């Protein structure tokens, strides 16, 4: 086990969530808007004031200071806004690592200011910032947002390669159910601040998301036709 978290709560947003993540595991977190995916990532990363316990290698990483914490976990927020116009290279250095990810093709972007990059370029740069300290656990909120289809696949494959080294792991919040099914070892489904189910097979999907698979495409769940309204 890389991480054990029990009884994580944030008043009104996350209720009593418990998670265990094993070495080398890529776990995807899915759920409707407002179901608590980001809150769970926050609770694990020590953002805000969550209650509950988190243990990694015998310590609570949320008690570690800036010199040690990035070795345990890093967090990529869903927003791609950086409040201060730093050079891309400096942004990665401030996160506590080096940008040696050939797969992300950053070389020509490193000496540009982060606010002059396109949204997709900025996304790749911020992902590099989160990967760079080579943490045991990656907490990624919508890492594929703003990326084109090719980059979405490349990125998830890079995450897979990264965590395959030295027994690391990733917890990835993602909206795209097909991407989750394709890349994850396990899928946790969140609903109304709780971890409601595991996996995408079963009747819970229609209840939680209000969608179902019809002829290979996701469709809104149709209520059974009312016999009185039919001609």
């Amino acid at each position, binding site marked *: 086990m890389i991480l054990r978290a029990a009884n994580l709560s944030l008043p009104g947003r996350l209720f009593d969530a418990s998670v265990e993540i094993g070495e080398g595991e890529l776990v995807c977190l899915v759920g409707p808007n407002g179901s608590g995916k980001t809150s769970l990532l926050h609770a694990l990363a020590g*953002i805000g004031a969550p209650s509950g316990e988190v243990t990694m290698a015998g310590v609570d990483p949320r008690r570690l200071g800036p010199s040690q914490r990035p070795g345990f976990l890093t967090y990529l927020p869903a927003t791609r806004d950086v*409040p201060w116009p730093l050079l891309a290279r400096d942004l990665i250095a401030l996160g506590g690592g080096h940008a040696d990810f050939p797969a992300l093709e950053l070389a020509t972007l490193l000496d540009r200011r982060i606010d002059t990059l396109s949204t997709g370029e900025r996304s790749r740069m911020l992902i590099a910032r989160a990967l760079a300290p080579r943490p045991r656990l990656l907490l990624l909120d919508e890492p594929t947002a703003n990326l084109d289809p090719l980059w979405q696949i490349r990125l998830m494959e890079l995450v897979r390669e990264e965590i395959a080294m030295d027994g690391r792991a990733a917890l990835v919040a993602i909206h795209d159910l097909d991407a989750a099914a394709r890349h994850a070892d396990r899928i946790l489904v969140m609903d109304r601040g709780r971890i409601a189910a595991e996996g995408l097979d079963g009747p819970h999907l229609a209840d939680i998301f209000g969608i179902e698979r019809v002829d290979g495409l996701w469709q809104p769940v149709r209520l059974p036709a009312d016999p009185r309204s039919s001609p």
Partner: protein
Amino acid sequence: MTVRTSILLMLALGAAFAASALLPFESLQTLFAEDRTLALSLLVELRLPRALLALAYGATLGAAGAAVQALFANPLASPDLTGTTSGAALGAVVTAYLFGFAAPVALSVGSVLGALGALGLLLALAGPRAETATLLLAGLAISALAGALTTLALALAPSPFAFYDAYDWLMGSLIDRSLDQAGFAALPALATIALLLRLGPALDRLALGEEVAQSLGNDVARLRLQIICLTAFGVGACVAICGAIGFIGLIAPIFARRLTRGHPGRAILPAALIGALLLTAADLVTRLAPLGRTLPIGVVTALIGAPFFLWLVAHMRWRLAS
């Protein structure tokens, strides 16, 4: 900041300090020839406190400006535009009525409390990561309120002398302060800058965004409280002795960040040096400008700073539009 730029900055600062203590030179030379003791006491009791105050106040404004800009993630935040100096001035004027202008400890405490109140109000009004418009509006409102209350206090002055004392002091002045008074500003200033420097790395990480900074192990709420208390303490102590001086806290950090590749936290030290340099230079202008009398230093910094501020606003608008 490279070693070469730091050495150049220190040399410029040393030259400015020497110039500020020795110029105008002819009068000092004549006096030395006539009466050595008098000349020495003039140097120690008049010129030295003034040069020291310019150094300490300028450095505090520069460092505090850099820290506040980093905290609010906004290059337009500064102790004067956010109402901190007005709050400090109000605190000092109210205290002065109670204890007189010759009570530096009470004056400093009143001034620091005023600055703390203004910064607390700003945080409550504008929020921790304020948009430029919200930040400036809140700062404007606080400055206006503190200004109105200061004017009210002046209108209720117990005597015309008290009124003139307060008015003179409000214009911002480094003149006729004793070495003791200079110490009352310089020691808190030094402590503030030293403590702010220790927060530099955390402020740099805050530039990645508040959530990321927290996930990297920074206690952002505590950092915010530390910056606010330190800024109020340093600026308040200087305002208590010299009155409100504007624009240095806005300009110095902007130049300083050009030396730190835009890092807001690393810019605290160069901002302190540049602030000290700017205020010393402004003080030299007040003395050497051929107007037949000494200009109030607050007027000089405003005359130089206001056009720069206008340029900055136009520049930001242009950048947002493009």
